[in-house]
């Protein structure tokens, strides 16, 4: 289908986004063409300001509009407990749980030798520096429970152990609403290993 150059330009730009193919990009472009001017301007402004208004927090390396971020500035949060996550989206997921009231450290990924990602590509040295600087009682390793996340947690554990800081790993086990019949035997085994007393 032949379309005008402005539509083609937008389709080409949208196609570069993850998960968006030619058809979805064309559908979005025509949707925007039919949307009110104010809606399109709002979206355009938001995209335009995204990069210039987003910075990395100098303490936890989360994405924020001001550094240090609101979480690191909050005096009510426990600055002695640091939860280590791979990505900002993981931090947001833990915040949604409302069970952790300490601070964070965003690594920027996990060890992935096959993709060429080693310790120097993550913010592990910055975490070590933070722990060496004092004032940290516990580091909670909340990297994903997959091969790369586990290996990253163990690597960090080896690096931080000499400092004497308390180290813990998020628990493994059955998900809420899960079904034992469909769970793999490793998860079931870990659920039994990490069982808790009731009553």
């Amino acid at each position, binding site marked *: 289908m032949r379309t005008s150059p402005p539509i083609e330009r937008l389709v080409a730009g949208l196609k570069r986004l993850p998960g968006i193919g030619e058809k979805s990009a064309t559908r979005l472009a025509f949707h925007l063409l039919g949307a009110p001017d104010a809606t399109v301007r709002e979206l355009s402004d938001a995209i335009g300001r995204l990069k210039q208004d987003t910075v990395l927090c100098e303490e936890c390396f989360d994405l924020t509009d001001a550094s240090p971020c609101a979480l690191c500035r909050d005096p009510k949060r426990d600055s002695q407990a640091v939860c280590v996550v791979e990505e900002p989206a993981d931090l947001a997921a833990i915040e949604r749980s409302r069970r952790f009231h300490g601070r964070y450290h965003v690594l920027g990924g996990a060890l992935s030798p*096959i993709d*060429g990602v080693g310790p120097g590509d993550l913010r592990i040295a910055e975490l070590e520096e933070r722990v060496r600087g004092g004032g940290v009682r516990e580091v909670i390793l909340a990297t994903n429970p997959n091969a790369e996340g586990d290996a990253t947690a*163990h690597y960090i554990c080896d690096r931080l152990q000499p400092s004497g800081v308390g180290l813990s790993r998020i628990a493994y086990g059955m998900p809420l609403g899960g079904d034992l019949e469909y769970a*793999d035997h490793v998860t079931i085994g870990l659920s039994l290993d990490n069982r808790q007393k009731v009553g």
Partner: protein
Amino acid sequence: MAGIRTEAVVLRSVDFAESDRIVHLLVPDTGRLTAIAKGARRSVRRFPGTLDLFNHLRVQLQTRRSGAMARLEQATLIESFTPLRHETRRFAIACYLLEVLDRLAPEAGARDDMRRLFRFALAALRAAATRKPDARLRVLIELRALEALGLRPELRRCVRCAAELGGAAQVDFHVADGGTLCGRCAAPLDGLLRVHVGTLRALEQGLRFDFEHLDRLVLGPVALAESRQLVGRFQRFHVGVDLRSERFLNEMLPA
């Protein structure tokens, strides 16, 4: 569309679109194949904790026309080689092994060769998970991976004239030719690697032994250094690609 039930080892697992995952699998009958697991990141029933690196699975696949990506319908875990995640040197060796297999395993090899390759992959993952993760294990897994992929170096005869190597303590190894050379064939060549015959015999033993008996193999410091140089140069020349996981492996198991 044809349905297949087979065993598989996960060589690579990449998130795709909203909730899918693309996996590279090594399967016993045909070698390497790529499959898409639709909704894998959301489904707790079809793919419970399965599509992770190193996992040995039983899978159900739908294959379409030749060259098209297969569709992974279901996967159950047989073995996860858990220690590979809990020790950084084991993780480094196993990632290197997976990358070699992912880059070099054929997509439609001869059935017997592919079955041998699959058995090697499982044995090597088990060795990486249970044997001492040191430079000796690294070099032997590297060498045996090359052999399993049909790239075995000649270690006993002259690779050019097939003459038995004499009683010298050291001989020349020519990387481009893929093996040792007798004195006469070696004379006009440059870039030869001088190695002790004892190192070559140890490497031959390393190719013969089951992984369970690797502890019997003694590689002294000189033999280990020569082995690493020989296998490393042979691998780089014949594989012809830079393996991304090698940098991490060198960091975790320095020479």
